């Protein structure tokens, strides 16, 4: 129903361009691109330490009796927690493997969100696209019996298609009807979640003799082989590196990427320059979904038990938003941010095991990091930094529900 509604109908997207130029760091200087995220991380860790301190019930009891001892214990508890975080992420070869392993799907998902940002689209639907892509990969994985050299690429193609279709639906809805991608992708996430549950319980996917939603296992030839011995890091990580390089080439060296960025910067200008904005929305959401789909495939053919289970993509699709913001929507930035978040994941598990701090703290840290990056004025106010000249303009345009 696009006819009869002017551009002021409220559902026409006005683009995120200027806000992204300022906040997602697209086109900002390298120093600016590193300084704010680094300070945001530091601040988040300090606040996280404070949260650890005030939730330790045993130490809280000591405060009344012996404040100095309590203070010492508090500092020790926080240091213990962060020591476990570091040991668990980079303390040993196995820890590094765990970090890379955890980073793999995060990098794919982060790239998916980042290219959306670059084109002025906010893809919250990475979670759903991972589920559908993963499911397609799984189907290819257990249905066919092929040599690994053919089977694994086929699994990846399945994931690409599955994710691209699910992302493309949101792109198509936006292009055809102007429905805002935020609302459609949130809805598609839930639909995917229930669809996965339903399919995993259908005889088509379900493991024989089971009643719960669990699929057959992917064939040996379809599983991502590990890189080093019994460490869990697998070729998925190499694929992520390839994806980073490819997206860098696509966005900064190809005509299509230029069009994507041009539309992201100003959809109207793109339209007047002869670009098909509608087609670009579909293409960006499709590519974004395809990247997410491979990330989803990694969650079924890249780790034990090589089966689909309920909600197998977990929270990765939402972590990816934080990750893309932290990486300033640049593929290389996303790679480093992915490694950082992978480290937080791997270290968070160690922190939970060794220091008894629930891994959910990692979510809190992530939220703090995004809010500090999204509101750079906050970081500047805390550290009394000067506002760079390029950012003195204060215009923001987030286009409503489109």
């Amino acid at each position, binding site marked *: *129903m696009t006819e*009869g509604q002017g551009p*002021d*109908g*409220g*559902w026409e997207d*006005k683009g995120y361009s200027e*806000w992204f130029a300022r*906040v997602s760091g697209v086109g900002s200087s390298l120093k600016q691109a590193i300084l704010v995220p680094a300070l945001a991380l530091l601040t988040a860790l300090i606040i996280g330490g404070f*949260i650890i301190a005030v*939730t330790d*019930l045993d130490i809280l009891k000591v405060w009344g009796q012996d404040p100095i001892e309590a203070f010492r214990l508090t500092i020790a508890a926080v240091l213990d927690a962060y020591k476990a975080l570091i040991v668990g992420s980079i303390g040993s070869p196995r820890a590094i493997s765990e970090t890379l392993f955890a980073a793999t799907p995060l990098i794919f998902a982060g790239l998916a969100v980042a290219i959306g940002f670059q084109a002025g689209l*906010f893809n919250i639907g990475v979670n759903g696209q991972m589920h559908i892509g993963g499911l397609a990969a799984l189907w290819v994985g257990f249905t066919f019996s092929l040599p690994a050299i053919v089977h694994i690429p086929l699994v990846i193609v399945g994931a690409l298609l599955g994710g691209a279709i699910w992302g493309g639906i949101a792109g198509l*809805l936006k292009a*055809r*009807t*102007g*429905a*805002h991608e*935020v*609302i*459609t992708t*949130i*809805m*598609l996430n*839930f*639909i995917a979640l*229930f*669809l996965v*549950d*339903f399919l995993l*319980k259908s005889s088509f996917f379900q493991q024989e003799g089971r009643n719960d939603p669990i699929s057959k296992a992917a064939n040996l030839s379809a599983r991502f082989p590990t890189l080093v011995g019994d460490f869990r890091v697998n070729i998925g990580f190499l694929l992520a590196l390839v994806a980073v390089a490819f997206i860098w080439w696509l966005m900064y060296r190809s005509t299509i990427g230029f069009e994507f960025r041009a539309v992201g910067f100003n959809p109207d200008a793109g339209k007047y320059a002869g670009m098909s904005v509608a087609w670009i929305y579909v293409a960006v959401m499709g590519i974004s979904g395809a990247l997410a789909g491979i990330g989803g495939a990694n969650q079924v053919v890249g780790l034990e038990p090589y089966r689909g289970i309920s909600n197998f993509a977990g929270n990765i699709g*939402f972590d990816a*938003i*934080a990750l893309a*913001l932290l990486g300033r929507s640049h593929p290389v930035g996303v790679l480093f941010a992915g490694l950082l978040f992978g480290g937080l994941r791997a270290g968070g598990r160690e922190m939970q095991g060794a220091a008894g*701090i*629930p891994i*959910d*703290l*990692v*979510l*809190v*840290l*992530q*939220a703090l990091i*995004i*809010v500090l990056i*999204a*509101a750079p*004025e*906050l970081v500047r106010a805390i550290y009394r930094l000067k506002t760079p000249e390029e950012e003195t303009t*204060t*215009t*923001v*345009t*987030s*286009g*409503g*529900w489109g």
Partner: protein
Amino acid sequence: MTTDSEAPQLTIKRRSTPEERRATAVGIVLIVLAVFTFWVFGLGSESGSQAEFKLSLPGARFEDLAWVVNAQWLAFIVSGVLAFLGGLTLRRSHLEWTNIALAIGLGLLALAFLTWAAAGGSFSLVGMLRSTVLLSVPVTLGAMTGLMCERVAVINIAIEGQLLTAAFVGTIVGSAWGIWAGLVGALLTGALLGAVLAVLAIKYRVDQIIAGVVINIFALGLTSFLARRVLTEAQDLNSPGKFSSFKIPFLGDIPVIGPMFFDHNLFVYGTFILVIILHFGFFYTRWGLRSRSVGEHPEAADTVGINVYRTRYRNVILGGFIAGFGGAFFTLAQVSRFEENLTAGIGFIGLAAMIFGRWMPLGVFGAGLVFGFARALQQKLGILGTPIPSEFLSMTPYIVTLIVVAGVVGKARPPAADGQPYIKD
């Protein structure tokens, strides 16, 4: 709206308007549903099998009210009515009736479906309608939160986080100092998160969608962290008790309507009152006019002396109180215990209900009831044991929303300035 027949013989064929094409689409959908009903619910039922709908709860004043109906005949009748409505809509002569025909059609379809599912047994219809109202409450309250914010052009997708955190604080404060204190704690928590959203969106001009996402992640992380770290050790902080139901005299004894609307807890009545207050407030008071003007055209509102920033802060924070009330429903009325990610996406359904209800308090209430019905149906169908997988029913609210935002049920128009920060010159 003039029709073709009134125009003289013209060689140029008039292009049909979107409303007319929509009427055609709805008409076709209704005819398809008529065929479907005839085929699946009509021919699919055993002839002569009857469905018994219980219309009273055990122990009610008018006990043993029931409606027994022949499943097959009902399906045939519904099919006929659907076909009639479809044909009428296809004529495109009364376009304003399109949505009403669709609503009546879908309501009848639900009835035929229930009869088909309950055929050969009995089904507590009034029980289901009662839980429809009950389950609609958190959805409606979430949607009202969104409504309060979006009417002043602040997008709030942090509703989920507000509900979750309020539920958490409600549990802890309620366990420590009693349920009324818990309710106050939850209200303040919702308002506090509303204030955070307001500061980020209005003062720091953070993209409002990202601000909302951040609050959601933060809420999920912090409540899960605290639940695991504190509530597992201090179990006594996780049993706040419940607000119990109380029947309203006379009204509560009316058959069907009574148990449905007038035998509930504080939160349900609170929601009814809130809907009325907000409807009246937004459309019949100075506050409402000012709020709406800030949402539609902040520059104009500013020119006539309305303080845009203050209006936005006030409404977003007031919306936060509503979210706090909704959050308290989970732990102080529904389950009386906090678990990780207890709200499980209800805040997002609330967002959907807000759009479905077209940013109108009464519409939002209706949308909340529709989503509540879908959730109640999903619960009760497990008991009836139909071949329809529960996942598809769970999906329904989201698919409906997708259809609504795609404009199939007509264009839903948000406040014109929605999502845009206001910069005073």
